[in-house]
């Protein structure tokens, strides 16, 4: 896997992620990528309900959210999380066939989406973009890529 400069928060702490996917394999795959970006896994969830609970518990910087899951689908989880935390940064992870669902998730407040199979360099750029959009620093978005970890 290629090397990436670490993505960091503004306060120079590492970025904390919540990874939501019903497939353990998909989660591990994403976590591996996140770690090469210098990130930290705050929590994992295999369905929407757990995702909401985990979000409230861990308050992650970024949520990577699958679309189709048991118990509660990704879209509903997005809707519920954003209703409580309007500044939540949620990136949908899905294959092309679910365009309708991604559209709905974006309308509910997801910040971005990435296609499965996820490519590390694409995810990296997307995360960098989503992290740079700091609502508090409107007008002067900063790129938060630090030195190589």
């Amino acid at each position, binding site marked *: 896997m290629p090397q990436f400069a670490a993505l960091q928060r503004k306060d120079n702490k590492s970025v904390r992620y919540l990874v939501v996917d019903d497939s353990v394999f998909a989660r591990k795959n994403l976590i591996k990528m996140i770690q090469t970006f210098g990130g930290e896994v705050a929590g994992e969830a295999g369905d929407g309900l757990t995702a909401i609970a985990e979000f409230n518990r861990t308050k992650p910087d970024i949520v990577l959210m699958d679309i189709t899951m048991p118990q509660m689908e990704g879209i509903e989880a997005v809707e519920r999380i954003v209703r409580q935390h309007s500044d939540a940064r949620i990136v949908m992870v899905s294959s092309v066939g679910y*365009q309708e669902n991604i559209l709905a998730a974006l309308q509910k407040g997801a*910040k*971005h989406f990435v*296609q499965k*199979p996820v490519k590390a360099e694409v995810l990296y750029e997307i995360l960098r973009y989503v992290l740079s959009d700091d609502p508090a620093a409107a007008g002067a978005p900063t790129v938060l890529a630090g030195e190589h970890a």
Partner: protein
Amino acid sequence: MSRPPEDRGAELRALFFESAYELLQALNEGGLQLETHPGDEEVLRGVRRAVHTLKGDAAACGFAQLSELAHQLEEVLTPEVVQSRGAGIAEIVLSAADIFGTMLFAYERNSEPRSGIHLQKMIRDLLEGPSSKKDLTAHEAHGSQIAATFAWTEYEQLMISEAVHRGESVYNLALRVDPNSLMRAAAFQLIRNVLHGSGTVIALRPEDNIAAATVEVVEAALATKFTAEALAQRCRIPAIVSDVRIERAGISEHELLDDLLEVQANLAHAEHPDDPAPAAGSAIGAAVTAITETSLRVDAARIDAVMNLVGELIIGRSMLNRTLAEFDKSHARDPVRTKLADAMAFQTRVLDELHKCVLKIRMVPVEQLFRRFPRVVRDVAKQCGKDVALQVTGQNTDLDKGILDSLAEPLMHLVRNAVDHGIDPVDERVAAGKPARGTVFLNAFHQGAQVVIEVRDDGRGMDTNNLRAQAVEKAILKQEEATRLSEQEVLNLIFEPGFSTATAVTEVSGRGVGMDVVRSAMGKLKGTVHVSTQLGKGTTIQLRAPLTLASIQTLLFRVGGRLFAVPLSSVVEITRIREDEIHMVDQREILRLRDQLLTLVRLNRLDHIHAVAAPPAAPTKKTRFVIVIGAAEKRFGLLVDSLVGEEELVIKALPSDIVSSDLVSGASILGDGTVVLILNVPAVVSRFSKALPMEAIA
């Protein structure tokens, strides 16, 4: 100079504008000549004279800003400057003509052109030294290549200028959607989210997610508190937007001035002063054409409304025709009869012409769709590590805009497939004695009332035996079924959901969209897909769609007392048979027609299209008509009670809650008010070939 006395003012003003527009014309012509003959001093003198005159006239009328600007331009139009700038001077002259034009336009409407000081300063910078304005960022110069019209409606323009008046900064944005993005609608939604999160969106093109599915460039006018630089950063959304162009909106001199500055920047970067950057030329070209644009942007819904009305008129005409025929019978000797017939003939001719014209409005060249593919082929080929060329022919073929839009997705899929799976790897190609570089051919042409779009590759082709084995392996077919299928039927397996022939799932394939998407998209268009392949030589996939969705030539017939229609384009022949010629084979009715076996279909058995269930009577000598229908490679015979004739029908879509069957693609009304159901031929074929035992159909 001072303003002339009021009484002569109006007259002088009129005279000024008249001559000023002539001077602009001279500037434009001079600019074009300078482009081809950069050093022509005679032309340059002419241009200089025109600018000089404009300066004096403008000053006389009290248009100080224009006069001042012209003065500055005049200063730069010296042989020395021309020598140092070369052909670039032509672009400056042309852009200046545009700026003067917009200023004149403002003066004519008694409004003062805004931000004169700013404008003058920039012009001065421009004229003083080529390096003084180098700080234009690279992306802005680059982004200017995005072709954007920013053709806002009057209302939107009003909103923009009001926002500017309130002191907000308004930008015109053009965002190029990443050509690799497979989810255009979602990409557009995301762009929309970002725009809405960056300020107030005043105007947006396209306007909805559906239209966005085929659009390459999203245009918007945005009032924002961000700087252009910050805005560009926000808009450069990874994996979604590949290119951004931002310019200030609301003050038209500004836009043109930006172009002028880009010329400047490009000139500064150009290695040879007499060889201006091509980007600069196109940017200015766009600015010039934007002004001379004669085409009109109209809401598609309005065209559809006109189209519907024309459809109603056609129905009205056939009502008249019928009435006329009745009148003919009852008043055979009435002289009014011929007068009516004449009037009718005239009306028919005009109506036909009107119909054609309206259809033409919706027609666009397929080039609009094809032009994105060179990039797609290049990118996909690169991803697969192949060397693939794209050859495009027939790009001037016209078809309905709606159909064009719906073809975009299936075609994108086919082209990607052709590069990824169709074209063989270089070593295989060389071993097979083929050129190392693969070629994908895109072709479009008209055939009857259909448009055909062809995607062909010179790759490895498909092995039908391999396909058979795959079908059995994937439990789509049983072994004996697989062996019984014809070559064509085997090829059609690739359209089955979940059937992929790729041995390895690559990055490009294996995205969960298959050929079944292509087939269903074509089905919605009342079109067909046809595959042919030659092992080792390549694969051709043909998409056939009607030229227009609005009206079709049909053959009318009756079954069980009801009127039906089939598109004339799918009728192969009509024949007459005796009922005892029908044989039963494998629980199907079969007819031997010139040594070919033809499966027969009775509409009243097919489905619940209608309830008249005439039981298969004992074979008699009674004769029946059979309409032989072809859809893609399949042929079947439709047993009908009687033929009614040919008729041009205007298709009215049926709401799905009225007709739940996909066997009917629409309905139409005849002149006498009779409702005709139009058969969806591909659906009938597939329904019939799936339902093997006849009992299962009923």
